[in-house]
């Protein structure tokens, strides 16, 4: 069924991103906006806007009933959930199916299977993918005996978590009982599911993920992205391809991701996340993100594909119009997340008003911005203001262009992560390529020169200070 009118059930830059593709394809757009977003750039740009509810996400962007009513009230034939919010909600996928609407995403059954991190892990094992030693634990005794296989340190992870939420690092066996108790309580409160599992902790490790595009039968990979520049498990800068990865390792990861997609009979866009053990040149399955991702533009910049357009095409029930041979890679791309956070004050979130916003422009530069001069940055949602995506024929050309683009990028009114990005792209370790997931914390550590820290042994700084106070 062709999509003629699409409800975009999201906000900020990803809402504008989806509107842009729809305009190009001639699809009429309806934006579902909370009361805090009725004046947003996305609301001004959409063909029409439907009031979704009050600012608090629980009554608007996180309400399956509100999104469904918005779709029906506006006569949309399909719902695009973007990322975050209800993008991985089997309940929304089911509700759309019952109402005869297309949900732009995988099936509810796939969302259930992949949202349960143990089921996802089991699927990966069944498809022949390497996983880290570990497994579900229901008691301290079980956990202690599992330590023989995982070793220390070990990560306690929530089965209902993912995306860096609900993880706790245990370095000594003596901390295990207490960590389990806390993790179960937190997982229960945050995800409504108290189950936890253990996985070996790898340092130094790199976070490398493979983009999949599938129609339920055929599965393509659209290359990998390196997302190792993270703070408290939150990605800050991503690039494609992953720098300095041995070619055989890269190709094995692509093949492994495709194998998992085939095993699942996956449909839509999805990302298979891997942890690369830098010391052993080996990789392990982490999880699958069954949706479009924040960092998708680095893939688009190196393949010249419009992933949202392909996602909509498959959501119409049509078979993929691309073969693996049609996916050609060219150049290097880097994305910087410009967040309304103050790097000088421990990344304190900084809602407020953007009094002025001036973007860099030119060849190889793309900015996906959810705000504009005069925009309010509400406190209710995440802090992402814009994504600067820069590409060039190779990595060093992309970095040179990125440095210039960051110098021309100014946001007034709220502090942002732009100054931090300027510092990162000037750092010799980053310029050399292939930093691990602990690198950014070492750069940010008080007194750290940042540049000349050895990349091993990787002090698991990011993990020690991990935020666990997430709320479902």
């Amino acid at each position, binding site marked *: 069924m062709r999509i003629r009118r699409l409800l975009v059930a999201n906000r900020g830059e990803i809402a504008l991103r989806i509107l*842009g593709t729809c305009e190009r394809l001639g699809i009429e757009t309806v934006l*579902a*906006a909370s*009361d*805090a977003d*009725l004046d947003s*750039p996305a*609301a*001004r*740009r*959409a*063909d*029409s*806007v*439907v*009031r*979704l*509810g*009050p600012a*608090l996400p629980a*009554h608007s962007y996180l309400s399956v009933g*509100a*999104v*469904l*009513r*918005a779709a029906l*009230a*506006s006569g949309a034939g399909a719902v695009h959930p973007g990322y975050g919010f209800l993008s991985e909600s089997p309940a929304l996928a089911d509700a759309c199916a019952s109402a005869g609407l297309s949900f732009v995403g995988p099936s509810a059954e796939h969302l259930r299977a992949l949202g349960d991190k143990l089921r996802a892990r089991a699927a990966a094992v069944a498809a022949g993918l390497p996983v880290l030693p570990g497994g579900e634990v229901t008691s301290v005794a079980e956990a202690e005996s599992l330590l023989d296989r995982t070793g220390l340190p070990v990560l306690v992870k929530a089965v209902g978590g993912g995306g860096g939420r609900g993880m706790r690092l245990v370095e000594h066996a003596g901390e295990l009982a207490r960590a389990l108790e806390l993790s179960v*309580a937190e997982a229960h*409160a*945050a995800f409504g599911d108290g189950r936890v599992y253990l996985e070996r902790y790898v340092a130094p490790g790199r976070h490398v993920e493979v983009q999949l595009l599938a129609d339920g039968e055929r599965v393509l990979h659209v290359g990998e992205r390196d997302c190792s520049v993270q703070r408290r498990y939150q990605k800050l800068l991503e690039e494609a391809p992953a720098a300095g990865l041995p070619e055989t390792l890269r190709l094995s990861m692509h093949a492994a991701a495709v194998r998992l997609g085939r095993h699942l009979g996956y449909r839509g866009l999805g990302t298979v996340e891997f942890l690369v053990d830098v010391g052993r040149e080996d990789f392990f399955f982490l999880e699958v993100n069954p949706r479009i991702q924040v960092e998708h533009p680095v893939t688009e910049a190196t393949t010249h594909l419009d992933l949202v357009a392909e996602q909509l095409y498959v959501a119409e029930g049509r078979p993929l119009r691309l073969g693996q041979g049609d996916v050609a890679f060219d150049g290097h791309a880097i994305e910087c997340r410009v967040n*309304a956070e103050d790097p000088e004050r421990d990344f*304190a*979130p900084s*809602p407020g008003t953007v009094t002025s*916003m*001036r*973007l*860099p*422009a*030119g*060849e190889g*530069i*793309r*900015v996906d911005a959810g705000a*504009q*001069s*005069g925009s*309010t940055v509400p*406190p*209710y*949602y*995440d*802090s992402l203001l814009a994504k600067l995506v820069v590409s060039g024929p190779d990595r060093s050309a992309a970095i040179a262009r990125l440095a210039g683009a960051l*110098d*021309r990028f100014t946001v007034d009114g709220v502090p942002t992560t732009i100054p931090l990005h300027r510092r990162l792209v000037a750092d010799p370790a980053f310029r050399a390529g292939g930093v691990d997931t602990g690198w950014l914390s070492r750069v940010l550590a008080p007194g750290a020169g940042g540049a000349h820290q050895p990349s091993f042994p990787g002090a698991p700084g990011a993990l020690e200070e991990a*935020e666990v*106070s*997430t*709320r479902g």
Partner: protein
Amino acid sequence: MNLSPEDVQDILKVLDSTDYDELHLETDRFVLRLRRAPGGWTEEREALGEARLVPGQAVEEGVPAEEPNRARDSTSAGEDADPQRQGMHAVRAPLPGVLYRAPKPGEPPFVEVGDHVEADTVVAILETMKLMNPVRAGAAGTVSHFAVTNSEPAGQGDVLLWLLPDAPTPGEP
């Protein structure tokens, strides 16, 4: 219509071959300003016009319409002159966010009315942009009452709760 990023790239290519340093394009739908800067171009874009609201709405039954960021109990001369507030210590929101009185849903609150607190006692958390920020009492005293109810939004500087301080604090700002 809106300009696509590709359109802007094409305009820049044309501009590059000229001596112009600035282009300002304004319609009733958008503003685009391109300026030559050291090292390259800068762009300012602004979507104009009002959102075109669909008549029907999806708002949940029973959920009140609310003004986001509404300052509900913020400083005013009238409030400070209120005799009931004389000598009281206001615990204010250090940043805008949603107030939670307990560390997790279903757990007991950090403090109840009548509890004695120290200056560094955590009395609530404010969720701002998905981050949980502890709010400390700021003065030793006894919790008198909450000005914002649980899971409601508060603006920056709003009074969250009132304390009867152990030591009088005249001139509390």
